[in-house]
């Protein structure tokens, strides 16, 4: 049996699970679509990992990250729950020596993380608008009837990228349509969109940040060669896409679990057999005062295992 750590990153678009060894070697990984059902997806993912690995691997620590990190932590019994900015930073600094800048673009958000000597010194995340994130690319790819996996290939064939407005997803889309109706070829439009997204990222998320090499580009969108090229062109230097760029958040959560278990002594991991457990969330409005907080309850089978959402702490409950 190999002792190992599990990291789970449940984001808006994808759910990623990884298992790493004590030394940080990636033993198994899963990249799944969340499809709006985080509980079910996590259950399926854990189950599938178990079938692959349970006979050789013993999980001695587990961590969660991503926007459903709290929910997920209750499902799997996580030892650590961390925000995705910290998780991405931890993963990148383990994978790429002396990394100074992390560009991370996910389904609904994009972020930049600046590091020095292995610690985060500054970061920013897109606010208010999701222009330039994976969801927008997905949408444009499907409008143009190009599978998202081939998007980068189209961009690579461009000879003369079209200029497309990048400030806002709505502006970008109408600008793209105008250019397309003028008869520009698809390759040049797709490449133009990649450049617009990079411009938007740099002007919005990257504004006021000193971007220094080595630059790492991670997140699901880093699979898009068109964007990688556009970043290189804009920055004027190399951009590294790590081999496991799409599961870096989960890798970070696994590293954090390794540290957490050293402090805690033992893991709370519930095991790989989650398939037959019924997890569900219900809520009610508290009438204790005028705040009328929405109190959320989380059940494992018929046992209430957590309750939260009240501002005063009256209902708060955490089992285990």
């Amino acid at each position, binding site marked *: 049996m190999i002792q190992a750590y599990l990291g789970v990153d449940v984001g808006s678009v994808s759910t990623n699970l990884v298992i790493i060894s004590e030394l940080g070697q990636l033993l198994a990984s899963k990249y799944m679509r969340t499809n709006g059902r985080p509980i079910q997806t996590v259950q399926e993912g854990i189950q599938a990992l178990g079938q692959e690995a349970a006979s050789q691997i013993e999980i001695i620590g587990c961590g969660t990250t991503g*926007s459903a990190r709290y929910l997920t932590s209750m499902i799997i019994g996580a030892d650590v729950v*961390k925000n*995705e900015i910290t998780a991405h930073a931890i993963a990148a600094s383990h994978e790429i020596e002396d990394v100074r800048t992390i560009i991370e673009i996910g389904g609904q958000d994009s972020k930049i993380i600046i590091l020095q000597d292995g610690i985060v010194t500054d970061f920013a995340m897109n*606010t*208010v608008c999701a222009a330039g994130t994976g969801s927008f690319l997905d949408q444009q790819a499907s409008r143009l009837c190009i599978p998202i996996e081939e998007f980068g290939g189209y961009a690579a064939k461009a000879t003369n990228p079209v200029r497309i407005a990048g400030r806002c997803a709505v502006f970008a889309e109408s600008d793209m349509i105008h250019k397309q109706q003028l008869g520009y070829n698809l390759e040049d439009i797709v490449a133009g969109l990649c450049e617009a997204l990079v411009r938007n990222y740099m002007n919005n998320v990257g504004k006021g940040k000193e971007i220094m090499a080595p630059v790492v580009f991670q997140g699901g969108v880093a699979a898009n060669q068109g964007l990688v090229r556009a970043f290189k062109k804009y920055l004027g230097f190399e951009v590294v896409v790590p081999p496991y760029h799409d599961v870096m958040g989960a890798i970070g959560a696994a590293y954090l679990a390794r540290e957490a278990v050293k402090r805690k002594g033992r893991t709370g991991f519930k095991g790989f057999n989650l398939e037959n457990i019924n997890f569900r969330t219900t809520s009610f409005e508290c009438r204790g005062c*005028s705040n009328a907080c929405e109190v959320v309850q989380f059940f494992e089978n018929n046992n209430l295992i957590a309750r939260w959402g009240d501002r*005063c702490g009256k209902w*708060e409950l955490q089992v285990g």
Partner: protein
Amino acid sequence: MKISFPRMGYSYIAFKWLVENMGHECVVPPEPSNRTLDLGVRYAPEFACIPFKILLGTYIEVAQMGAQAVITSGGMGPCRAGYYWVMHKYLLEEMNLPLKIIAMEMPLLNLGDFWKKIDLLRRDGGISLKELLRVLKITWAKVKSIDDVEIRSHQVRPRELKRGETTLAINAGLAFIDAAQNEEEIREARQEALSLLDRVPCDEQRQPLKIGIIGEIYVVLEPAANHYIQLLLGEMGVETDRSIYLSAYARKNTIVNLEGDLFSVARPYLNEAPIGGHGVNSIAETILYARHGFDGVVQLAPFSCIPEIVAKSIIPTVSREYDIPVQTLFIDEQTGRAGVQTRMEAFVDLLQWRRDRGIHKKKVFSL
């Protein structure tokens, strides 16, 4: 007359007393809710900023509750908010809501106008000049006591042993101040409220991170407009101070107190022309918090707020030179808290790493 006003944090307790004791009936504005936002968004111009929309929503709500007038403030410097009360007035007229808007300009900018409006309210309420002065004095005492209690709560909360105890204590304490009817009673209520907070079981060993909250006045003052950021950070174990308290300019124990001085503090970074709203303040306050040894600063900016956008683009230089991390949150219609929670958690991680490595003490500043 039935009078209301914009809701800004706990200040409604003092303003309710003022309105009632000037001989009027008070319609206490409800805490901004999803309904407030829906109403505001529905009737406001799309491009207006979030304070405009929440205020409009509040005005519609209080009009429906029977208010005949709202007392509000004008603006400061070149920021569109100065014209907002005029737009609110036109919009309410268009909706046939008979709500009168009484906009008080800053007393320091136009004392005559300020006095004229106050005096009109006095005569309408049927109280004497002498009585008015007494009422204003007591209102001011309430404003100050409320701020004292709130300031203390933000110091206690990060140390509390059981989540929520501080919030229960401050709510109980503010009820005493609410009930107080004269200066003597206010003094006692304030004492009682502070000692309630001091009795909250705390971890005295804990040395919380300290974050300064800066930005546009409305989103800084109204918790419902800023995702209850001070509560959120407090419960994450962070002590907060915010740049704006209504009573701040008359006190010495807040970090930011003398408005006039802020311009000179900010001058090295924007010498050519001042910006309006609270943009200059945001630049200067970042410097003040750095000088006072705070670990970081959070800037709250309504989405599309020009003064805060200008400040935001200057702040990275200030942040570098004074070695203090600043995180900007743009605030708009979103009511989901996950995004704010994630950013704040990551920001707190960053500050904790810096503190653990002794980075934040690298530079020493003269005050």
